[in-house]
């Protein structure tokens, strides 16, 4: 059961935000998924409310990238607490280097197969989310890599990496 559940008033406000997002030309599938999550989860709702209240386009893109991450995570949630192996602080630098090398490889593949904008569109991702994924040292989601691979028409082996969420 959610501790932070979107209120009735927020759900009504959400309907207006969705219209605004649609008018801004955002992908309709993205808007629908964001709406569905925000109806249930107050954190997701507050991200959309921040987007609506924000004038700065760069900040809006950051919010949309945050929402994309929430949606991608929602597709992949464990049904109970899932323990993965510990990674010690002294190993972080090495892991980050390996994650970055993989993302640089991914970037080259994306550039060779249509570019970020096109691959994001085909993968059903917001462009700012794909840009953020490629520039960070955070571990990519396995399901996100699958979507990117499918969008490029390449094999799983071309996008596989040891460090995924």
């Amino acid at each position, binding site marked *: 059961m959610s501790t932070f559940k979107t209120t009735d008033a927020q759900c009504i406000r959400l309907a207006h935000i969705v219209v605004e997002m649609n008018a801004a030309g955002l992908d309709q599938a993205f808007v629908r998924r964001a709406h569905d999550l925000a109806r249930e989860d107050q954190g997701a709702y*507050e991200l959309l409310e921040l987007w609506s209240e924000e004038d700065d386009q760069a900040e809006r893109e950051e919010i949309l990238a945050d929402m994309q991450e929430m949606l991608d995570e929602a597709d992949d949630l464990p049904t109970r607490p899932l323990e993965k192996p510990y990674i010690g602080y002294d190993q972080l630098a090495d892991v980050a*280097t390996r994650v970055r090398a993989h993302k640089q490889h991914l970037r080259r593949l994306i550039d060779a197969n249509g570019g970020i904008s096109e691959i994001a569109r085909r993968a059903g991702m917001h462009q700012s989310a794909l840009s953020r994924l490629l520039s960070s040292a955070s571990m990519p989601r396995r399901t996100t890599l699958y979507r990117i691979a499918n969008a490029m028409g390449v094999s799983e082996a071309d996008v596989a990496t040891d460090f995924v*969420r």
Partner: protein
Amino acid sequence: MALDIVITEWALDSYLDLKHRQVFDDPFYGQTIRPDVELLSQYPNAAKFSVGRFWGPATDKAGNQIPDGFKMKWRQVGAGLVQLRLCVAITRAPADSSARAYLCRAYVKSSGKVDKREAAKLKRHINLIHQGQYVYRGKL
């Protein structure tokens, strides 16, 4: 009773990015961040938790306290002299289990806007923790 300190995957991932960006160096981690985070095992009894510049409740975009949400704070961090924040959820598991501190996202507070986005994410993470739908990478 000592609190278990759970390392969520949100925390691990954010540390990977901060490490890559060289936000803090190894000495700062070993001499400051790590000992401070380990204090969570003594929450709320360690004196430092009474210091507002170090620890306090997390607040949402409307300024309301986020139940179970807290922030650990460091200032003048690294070469960039940035403000570093670590979101922590302190919850009670089902009635017959001990309380736990869940390390959530760490981030650089570069603006109030970043704080508001991170507060929204913390709410989502606390929901998922309460629902048992989270990934963790062991305990500190």
